């Protein structure tokens, strides 16, 4: 039973099947958009199909239990396959068979036979070793047994290990991926130019947040745009950069300018430039019912300001929402068509000392738009500034990455060695045959036969001319 299982786990049939199954199941995940909101799926597939797909894990296929199991099975397959072959390959490398019988030698497809009568056994040995050297091979081992010499020569024996190393590298990559998923984290943080943050919002695991042991400051943020022929900005960002500084225990320990392909790292945590934005600064102008100016107040979305009214009571104004390009959608909701201030609109909440808070719209383009009159005061949106910039950083700590890269590098080297370094082996026996000495040369390779045959026929030529009897 156990034997059956190990045989199954180390079989190539399993490898080929798994690779093909992985290929075809992966396709499903590219046809169905992954990790979307359930509501979108219900709309797309209908409730019953949604439930089936959900149960099959098709909406997060690459993290589903069965996809993971397939990968785990592949890893087991690799492990068992290597374990099965390792003893044999180690033996081939470290204790090769030096002495082959005559029948064994004659069964090789690459072989040659010579005889010489003008040399003694040991002289023949010398000539043979010399010929080997001239052919670019060297004697690895020789033994004398029952009046005959057995010589073994080889090249590229360590390429036998390339197979194990290649397959091991894939397990390293898996290990790195597992380590990263289990211990690492990934999140993002937006930092206003000139301020610092130490808390990031996590992406996975319920969208929690995480406090770092240090703070990141955004000193400066800059965007450059591609220019058109006449030298104006096209609005397509060419590059964006943030000058970041790390403050650890109140001391600045590191400062670096980062851009899209050039992150900053501190204590293994990487900060990637991923987005940027601006928080618009609005100016709300407040006038009395008699049109006397009360003041111009700068405010940003979510912020508020206060002023004192004619009864010496405080009025608080909060900017609930800001729409740079206001419009109504089909269902009558206010939305912004774009981020360009084509039709700036602000939604205010005004709370005076007496009575309920009042909410009202103000439009920069339409200052006379009637608004909640009961406040008495007149509010208008008089300017929108691009305001303060913030940089959007992706924050990642993935302790598995070094393992993954190590695995990748070994994988590439391993594959190249498997394909291009063959293991050539040559056996030679020299024996007394009556008055003459007989030399049998035989060889084989584990791959690339044609090129070996080429090499081998060159060896044969060298042997032939070296072993020719001078006296004859």
């Amino acid at each position: 039973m156990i034997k059956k299982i190990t045989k199954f786990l180390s079989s190539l049939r399993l490898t080929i099947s798994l690779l093909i199954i992985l290929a075809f199941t992966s396709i499903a995940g590219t046809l169905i958009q992954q990790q979307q909101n359930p509501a979108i799926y219900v709309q797309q597939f209908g409730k019953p199909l949604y439930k089936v797909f959900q149960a099959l894990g098709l909406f997060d296929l690459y993290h589903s239990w069965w996809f993971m199991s397939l990968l785990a099975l592949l890893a087991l397959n690799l492990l068992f396959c290597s374990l099965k072959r390792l003893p044999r390959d180690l033996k081939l490398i470290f204790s090769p068979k030096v002495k082959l019988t005559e029948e064994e030698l004659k069964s090789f497809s690459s072989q040659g036979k010579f005889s010489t009568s003008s040399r003694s056994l040991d002289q023949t040995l010398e000539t043979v070793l010399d010929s080997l050297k001239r052919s670019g091979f060297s004697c690895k081992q020789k033994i004398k047994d029952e009046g005959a010499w057995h010589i073994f020569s080889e090249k590229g024996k360590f390429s036998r290990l390339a197979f194990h190393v290649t397959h091991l590298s894939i397990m390293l990559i898996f290990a790195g991926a597992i380590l990263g998923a289990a211990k690492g984290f990934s999140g993002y943080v937006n930092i206003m130019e000139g301020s610092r943050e130490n808390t990031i919002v996590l992406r996975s695991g319920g969208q929690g947040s995480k406090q770092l042991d240090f703070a990141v400051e955004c000193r400066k943020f800059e965007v450059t745009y591609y220019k058109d022929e006449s030298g104006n900005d096209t609005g397509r960002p060419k590059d964006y950069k943030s000058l970041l500084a790390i403050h650890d225990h109140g001391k600045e320990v590191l400062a670096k300018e980062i851009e899209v392909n050039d992150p900053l790292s501190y204590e293994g945590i990487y900060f990637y430039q991923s987005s940027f934005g601006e928080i618009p600064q609005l100016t709300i102008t407040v006038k009395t019912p008699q049109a006397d100016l009360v003041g111009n107040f700068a405010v940003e979305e979510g912020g508020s300001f206060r002023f004192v009214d004619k009864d010496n009571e405080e009025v608080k104004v909060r900017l609930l929402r800001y729409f740079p390009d206001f419009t109504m959608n089909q269902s009558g909701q206010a939305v912004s068509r774009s981020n360009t201030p084509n039709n700036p609109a602000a939604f205010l909440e005004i709370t005076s000392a007496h009575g309920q808070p009042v909410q009202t719209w103000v439009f920069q383009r339409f200052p006379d738009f009637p608004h909640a009159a009961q406040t008495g005061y007149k509010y208008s949106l008089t300017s929108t500034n691009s305001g303060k910039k913030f940089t959007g950083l992706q924050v990642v700590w993935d302790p598995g990455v070094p393992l993954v890269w190590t695995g990748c590098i070994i994988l590439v080297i391993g594959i190249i060695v498997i394909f291009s370094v063959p293991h050539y082996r040559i056996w030679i026996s020299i024996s007394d045959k009556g008055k003459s000495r007989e030399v049998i040369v035989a060889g084989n390779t584990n791959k690339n036969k044609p090129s070996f045959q080429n090499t081998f026929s060159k060896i044969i030529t060298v042997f032939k001319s070296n072993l020719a009897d001078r006296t004859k």
Partner: protein
Amino acid sequence: MISSKLFGAAMIIYIVAALIYITYLALKSEKVGNLATVITILGLCVHTAALITRTVASYRQGIGQPPFANLYSSMVFFSWAIILTYIILELIYKQKAIGAFVTPIAFILLAVTTLLSDQIEPLVPALQSNWLLSHVVTCFFGYAAFAVACGISIMYLVRIHYEGMGMGNTGVMQILPSSELLDELAYKAIVIGFPFLTIGIITGAAWANYAWGSYWSWDPKETWSLITWFVYAAFLHARFAAGWKGRRTAVLSIIGFLFVLFTYLGVSWLLSGLHSYA
């Protein structure tokens, strides 16, 4: 643009080369075969010059990266890599007949690019990376080797079809390489392509890690290149370790190339993801 004119010239040279290769199949004349090779190499030189001109133009426009980021650029590069891979294989294995199947592929790719805009587009910041360059170049060399393998596998299937009808030594069949050699050559081409695809996927992951902090995100293009990699890994194990040969591996090689084509074109047209540019 000058480069577009040069690409056009290369395209015409390739169709001429294809016709000469076909003539070679018909006449079985060594001289015609050599002429075909020379013409193809000439096309390759013109094509190379065109790529260089286009890169220089891109630097002039201040974009400062070899232009690989749209369909036009990647297709002209793809067809260049196919011809280069083929010429190398031809010079090593001295099999000219395959040219009749490969030069038309390069011609068709270049012909398709004439329908596309040849503008050099500015790169969004994420694409301005040396990783991108090595990623694109290695992937396309892989794809090119697989294209050549696919051409050879088709020849193989045609050949064994005729052999099955007892016509293995008549007409054009005489000059096609033997079925064993075709089988071997397809394998060789895949052996060349596989390390390139592997490096391509890895440099892509390295680039993503550098730009976004995540080396693998199962985006459709990424996933499809991995799927293609699985298919060719299956091919290699079937052929090398399990000893499959002939029709079954030829079919796997053709299926593999269909996956390559989908990875390259299908994903951008039909599925959405990060790689929507090329």
